[in-house]
């Protein structure tokens, strides 16, 4: 509800759009880095939306994986390989699963919500590693993709999937922003502060949590589809707890003041990871860990709190 933060947010979204569009003519490696970061960044955005309600999902990889596997299974087992159809299908299945799981999740808060989300994601992990038809722990590849009936190969494939990523990321960011300023988004944030008061003002906290949970799953599912299209492969690691932990970490590092923050946070993380692996292939985790530690110590409210401080009447 902070108008200053919202106007800066608009500028950041415009900046993000320019960067993503400019990368259409950038080298392949740079475009690929952006594509992977934005796809995973969408999942961190889903985590961030829930964090604004005071809920931390340690299992957001569930919807990332559902989106990715839905797209991959459709492409490989049914021959439906139009990238737009795959994006819609993966997102829809993630949303449908979240709608059902939401009836359970909306009853829990705090550590119980976090652990339950983790448990649900690890159930899927357990199923996938046992599923031989889906490649077990190795997963499987997506070979053929198309768009409007045209087969996509080589650089055209990358440009097409990247373009789809741009459209989906900007649409998700704008939808999230709209949601946060809407009646549901505004009242849902109040739940974090005082659920009892929300109920006694005449609104159902559970329904609002459910709304946000499904929206976060839709965005995360879309992120999973885009990731699967970018690398042409899915495997159970997408739903493993360490992957979900990474999304939480990025959301924490980025802060909750802007819908663009998790995307930029994920891009920074992937960039640091890429250079750390190039500089020190065997001990890159030490470099990555040191950078993360520095951010936590020096910018405890997240990277974006530096450029978008929240004015709270003198209260920090």
């Amino acid at each position, binding site marked *: 509800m902070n108008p200053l933060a919202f106007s800066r947010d608009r500028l950041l979204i415009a900046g993000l759009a320019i960067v993503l569009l400019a990368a259409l003519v950038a080298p392949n490696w740079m475009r690929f880095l952006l594509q992977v970061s934005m796809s995973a960044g969408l999942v961190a955005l889903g985590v961030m939306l829930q964090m604004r309600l005071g809920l931390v999902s340690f299992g957001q990889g569930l919807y990332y994986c559902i989106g990715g596997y839905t797209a991959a299974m459709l492409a490989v087992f049914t021959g439906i390989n139009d990238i737009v159809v795959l994006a819609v299908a993966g997102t829809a299945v993630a949303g449908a699963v979240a709608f059902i799981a939401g009836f359970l999740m909306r009853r829990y808060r705090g550590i119980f919500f976090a652990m339950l989300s983790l448990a649900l994601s690890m159930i899927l992990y357990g199923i996938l590693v046992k599923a031989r038809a889906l490649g077990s722990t190795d997963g499987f590849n997506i070979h053929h993709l198309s768009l409007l009936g045209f087969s996509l190969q080589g650089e055209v494939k990358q440009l097409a999937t990247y373009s789809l990523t741009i459209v989906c990321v900007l649409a998700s960011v704008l939808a999230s922003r709209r949601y946060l300023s809407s009646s549901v988004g505004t009242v849902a944030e109040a739940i974090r502060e*005082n659920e009892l008061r929300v109920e006694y003002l005449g609104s159902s906290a559970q329904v609002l949590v459910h709304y946000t949970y499904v929206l976060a799953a839709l965005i995360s599912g879309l992120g999973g589809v885009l990731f699967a299209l970018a690398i042409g492969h899915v495997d159970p690691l997408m739903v493993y707890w360490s992957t979900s932990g990474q999304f939480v970490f990025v959301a924490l590092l980025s802060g909750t003041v802007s819908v663009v923050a998790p995307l930029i946070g994920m891009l920074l993380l992937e960039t640091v990871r890429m250079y750390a692996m190039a500089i020190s292939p065997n001990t890159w985790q030490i470099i990555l860990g040191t950078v993360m530690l520095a951010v936590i110590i020096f910018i405890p409210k997240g990277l974006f709190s530096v450029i978008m401080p929240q004015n709270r009447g003198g209260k920090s």
Partner: protein
Amino acid sequence: MTPIIETRKLERTFGAVVAAADINVRIEQGETLGIIGANGAGKTTFVNMITGHLPPSSGAILFDGADITGNAPRQITRKGISRSFQIAQIFPDMTVIENMLVAITIAEEARLSPMRAAVTRARVERAREALGQFGLADSQDRVAGTLPQGAKKLLDIAMAMASRPKVMLLDEPTSGVSTEEKLAMMQHLMGALRQSGTTIIFIEHDMDIIGAHASRILAFYEGRIIADGSTAQVLADPQVRTHVIGQHVDREAGHA
């Protein structure tokens, strides 16, 4: 005429403990009803049952003739009964006007929209007006958690009034407020509530405040109503003097 609230043989037990028993009350529209009783007498249990915080063990609650027994708090609020709490229930990290805007958004939208903007010029105007009525206009940009106790209570009540309820229940509106602030705060509060024509039910320990503002009193003792009538009648009742006012006077004397 149908009473705005009617309770029939209302009872609430916690295991072997009877917190409220045989509560039969008819409250008419426009009344200002004061509830008195020592700690643990059943006052808050009574308010909690009416507002859906606690389901009664048995009995019925009627609102404007319709049975609302066992309804959820949000359903009861939507029907027209609002409440404030002994400990002010606000959104402490939001500003005062943001608190009010959340309350107005919920009040104005029967079904909250994920697309429609919550903050509109009209709602900001309405929020400012409401804060002005409760004497909080100067604090609108202050973080609610930093307000003095009395102002927090007023904000809690102002938010509860956003839905323009037919009945407003106040659970010890002056508890935690300094003696100097109390009378002025109640004057301000009752003025704002009466202006809206709301039926007021308030729990209070301070007999001066009860005497000044209630038109009728319910006195509770050990979960039962021991007196129900006009202010003068109840305050003069021997049972009330023994079990309620006497204890209150004794306690104050003990503190002195």
